[in-house]
Structures are given as C-alpha cells and as structure tokens.
C-alpha cells in the first residue's frame, strides 16, 4: 500500500519556476470558491443591493438584517424552530453512526470473508448506484407505511441506512488491506469479530470519514422523508422547514433576503463537517482509487 503522504517531496520554499503553477491553481481555486463567497455576501446584502441591476457580486454595506428577519419569521410560527433542529440533529446523528457501522461490516464481509453469492450482492449494489432515485420514492412509501414508520422519527432514519455509495467505497478500501494481516491475526486466535474491531476499523478510519461526510450530507439535506412520510408537523426536519419557509416567501420582496440567510444557515454545517473531515476524506479517495 503506497502511502499517500509517503514521500514528502513538498519543497519548503517557492521557486520562481513554480510561479506559473501557482498562477493556474490560484485562478482555478478562486473560481471554485466563488459560489461560496457569493452565498455569504448574498446573505449579508441589504434589500436594495439584492435587487440591483446588474447584480453585484460582493456586498457593499453588509447587514445582519436578513438574519433578524429570518428570526422574526420563525418566532411567530406555532412550532418552535428548535423542535425541527432537534429532529434533524437526532436523525442525522443516528443515520451517520448506523450507516457507517452497517457499511463497514458489510464491506469487510464482502471483501475478506468467503461465502456464497457475495459477488452477486456487490453487483446488485453497483446497479443500485446507477438507478434514478426519484423512481423508487413511491414504492418506498408503501414499505415505510407497512412497517408503521410513517409519523415516526425512525421513518427518517431507516430507509436511508443502506447506502450503496457507502458500501462501494468501504469495500474498495478494505480490498487494499493485505490478506496476510488478517491471516496472521486469525492464526493468533482472533475471531472475525475481533479482526473487524481491532484491525479493520482502525485501518479504514479514513474511508469511514468519507462515508460519514456523505451520510451527513444525505441526512442533513433530506427533505423527501419529511414531505412523504410525515403528516405530523412536529416530526419534520430542519431542512424541510427551511424549504417551506423560503418557498412561501420567495415571491415577496422581503423573502429574497430571508431565503439567502436560510440557505446560508443550511449550508454552514456542511462546510464545518467538511473542514473537520476533509484531510481524512481526501486520503481515502487517494487510497481507494475507486477501482
């Protein structure tokens, strides 16, 4: 296994001949970051700047008025905003933890244990990766309904636990762990469960970080389950709440600012998780090579 950081060849000083690389990279990075800067500046724009034509990219007189407006709108609704936030935090936490565990266990078994039809399982998974997600929403509803998960917080969690991408990434990563490592452990008397806990989990930490980030994305931004499975308002998630809030206000002039502020509030947790996990995630991608 070639370590991604194995050969530290980064020079300590910038040489003049490298300036051209920086020029390219910095220009491209600026493009990459542009939308995020735009989001922040849009949320801080006062109303007259939001409707300027031609639109300005950067905010000129930043104000927190949009956030205050957002707060005012949310404080008059019947159900307090914290309730939705609580739902989202619980749901996202459970989904991230459980889906990592399930994918890691399955990935380990499919990669390192011998049993029948494991190839078939993996192929089914790859096909599921390609399928249009929208087309299975309705059949899923029937299953959720029969299981009695409608109007139940579990209805947000259970349907999205089996993540095809998660299993795919983790299995690719476990494939790179040498078999000798596992054999030697089992000769020393380790059971498969012990191998999983003591060897596999520590080694695939980066892959699990990637899956965690993807699962977080999926659960935190999920509005579909609130929309389809939940009739009880108090069980809906924060993401759904935000979309209804901005959806109703979009047509009003004042709504534009509130929508921008809401979008920023929805986005910030994503960014924070990303910054915390990114170095590990990137390592995974480099290791797994997605082959």
């Amino acid at each position: 296994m070639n370590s991604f950081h194995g050969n530290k060849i980064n020079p300590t000083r910038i040489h003049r001949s490298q300036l051209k690389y920086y020029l390219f990279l910095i220009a491209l990075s600026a493009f990459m970051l542009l939308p995020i800067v735009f989001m922040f500046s849009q949320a801080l724009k006062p109303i007259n700047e939001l409707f300027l034509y031609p639109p300005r990219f950067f905010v000129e007189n930043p104000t927190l008025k949009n956030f205050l407006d957002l707060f005012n709108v949310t404080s008059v609704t019947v159900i307090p905003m914290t309730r939705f936030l609580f739902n989202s935090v619980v749901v996202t936490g459970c989904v991230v933890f459980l889906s990592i565990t399930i994918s890691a266990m399955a990935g380990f078994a499919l990669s390192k244990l011998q049993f029948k039809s494991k190839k078939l399982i993996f192929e089914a998974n790859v096909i599921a990766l390609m399928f249009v997600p929208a087309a299975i929403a309705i059949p899923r509803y029937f299953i959720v309904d029969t299981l009695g998960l409608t109007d139940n917080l579990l209805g947000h969690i259970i349907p999205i636990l089996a993540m095809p991408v998660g299993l795919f990434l983790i299995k690719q990563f476990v494939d790179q762990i040498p078999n000798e490592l596992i054999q030697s452990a089992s000769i020393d008397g380790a059971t498969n469960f012990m191998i999983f806990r003591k060897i596999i989990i520590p080694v695939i930490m980066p892959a699990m970080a990637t899956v965690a980030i993807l699962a977080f994305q999926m659960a935190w931004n999920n509005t579909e389950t609130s929309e389809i499975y939940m009739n009880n308002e108090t069980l809906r998630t924060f993401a759904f709440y935000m979309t209804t809030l901005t959806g109703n206000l979009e047509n009003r002039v004042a709504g534009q600012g509130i929508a921008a502020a809401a979008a920023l509030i929805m986005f910030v947790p994503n960014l924070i998780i990303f910054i915390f996990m990114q170095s590990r995630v990137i390592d995974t991608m480099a290791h797994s090579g997605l082959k």
Partner: protein
Amino acid sequence: MLLRLIRKRREMFTGYLFVLPWIIGFLLFMAYPIYFSLNMSFNRVLITSEGINTTFVAWDNFKYAFLSDPQYVEELVVFIQQVVFIIPIVVIFSMLVALLINQPIRFKGLFRGIFFLPVVITSGEVVKELFSQGATSIPIVERYGIVQFLEANFSSTWSEPIITVIQQLIIILWYSGVQILIFLAGLQKVNSQIYEAASIDGASPWEIFWKITLPSIKPFILVNIVYTTVDLFTNALNGVIGLIKEHMFKLNTGFGYATALAWIYFAIIFVILLLVVLIFSRNEDYNPRKAGR
C-alpha cells in the same frame, strides 16, 4: 478435513451475519422498490385515497414514451448531447488540474481541499439555492464582453461550444472534484524512478507525459469516465429526472408511466457505460500497478 469444513461453515455464517443488516436495508428500501417500479412500468397506475389501482398495459407506457410523448425523447436527446460534450471536458480538465497539483509545490493539501469542496456543494438543497440565486454563472464573463469577443472572432460552429463551456465553467469545475482526486491517486502510484530514468535518457517533459504518464493513468481515465457519467446522469437537477418526477404525480400519465421513463433512462445509462468499458478495456497492454512497483 472435518475441522476445515467446520471452519469454512463458520466463516460463511459470520460472513452472512456481517452483511445481514445491510442486506435487509438494501432489499427493503432499494431492491424491492426497484423491482416494484419495473413491475409498475408495465401498468397503468392510479393512486387514489383507497389505495392504488393498476391495470396491465404491457409495453404501452414505453410505446407512448417514444411515439407520442412530446417532451421525453427531445429532453433525452438534448441531455445526451450535453453529456457527450461535458464528459471529455470534465475528464481532461480534472487530469490537467491533477497534473498541476502533483507538481512539487507548496500548499498541495490546501489546493486538494479546495478542489474537493464541490462534494459538499453539489449535493442537496444547497446547489438548488445557488442556481436560483444565480451563483453558477460567472459575472465577469458577461461584464467584460468575452462572449462578444468570441462571437466576433470565431465562426459560430466554434464559438458556440466555447461560450457554453465558459458559461458553465463553474458547473464543470464542480463536477471535477472527485475525478481530480482519482487522477491524483493514479499519479501517485507511478514510480518516480521511471520519470528519473526517462529524463536521464533525455526525454522531454512532453514526451514523458505521452509515453509514461498517460499510459499509466489510463485505467483511471476509464474510472473517471464511468464516474462522471453516473454522476451526471443521476444528478437530481437534470431535465430528464425532472420530467420523470413531474409525471409521477400527473393524473393522466401517472406513476406507471414515470417508472417506464425511469427504466428507459436507466437502460440508456447502462448501455453507455457498457460501451465505454468495452472501448477502454481493449488493448490493455500496460498495467501500471504491476510495472509501477
């Protein structure tokens, strides 16, 4: 002999035990719904308050999609044209960026992080919000008349694709995040001694790129084409998926028709991927994983 048999049994048992939670979830919430939708695509489905009514119509939904639907085929053709155009751009672009980042420069990690960032942006509501706020176009392009300049100086067959690419540059950049990392992983696996040997033998950087770098990252080009195709096709923002969603709750066409559209779409993705894999996996004479170590 018997002992070995028992061990084998036990391993199979624990194997199934480990996959079991995943299999249950997969069967209930992926496999069965997919099977169900296949079934429904041959039916006319009416969802009423009492439940669903289905009538078997054989291939009618599929026939309707190709022969009578005013939108679907058109939308599909436009989308496939776009995809055929965007895939090479994304792949070439991400290769260039990966080559740049792979140079011995400082702040590698920072640049890698920035180029991976789209993974956070392009999922979920955020990207929809960005689209509606107009953050995905580049204001500078319109303001400084780059478009007019191109239109004036090139014939329309050349200027049009260039303009679309420039206007969609941010989108293309966003769809290159994972691909850049995959290429980087590939580049890291090439043994640096090969480069040294080549440059000692007097090869120019240009020759090194064509003769060493490109052949050794060829498998990763395939991976990236496949990844980009799947990524573009299953993106919730594309027109065809929008159309499928729209039909889902329409009364006159309904869920059955929507699933038929989804299955046609799935079949097309499948065929495209199959073609890509067939073309690229031929004459696989250079294997960097063997030669590189």
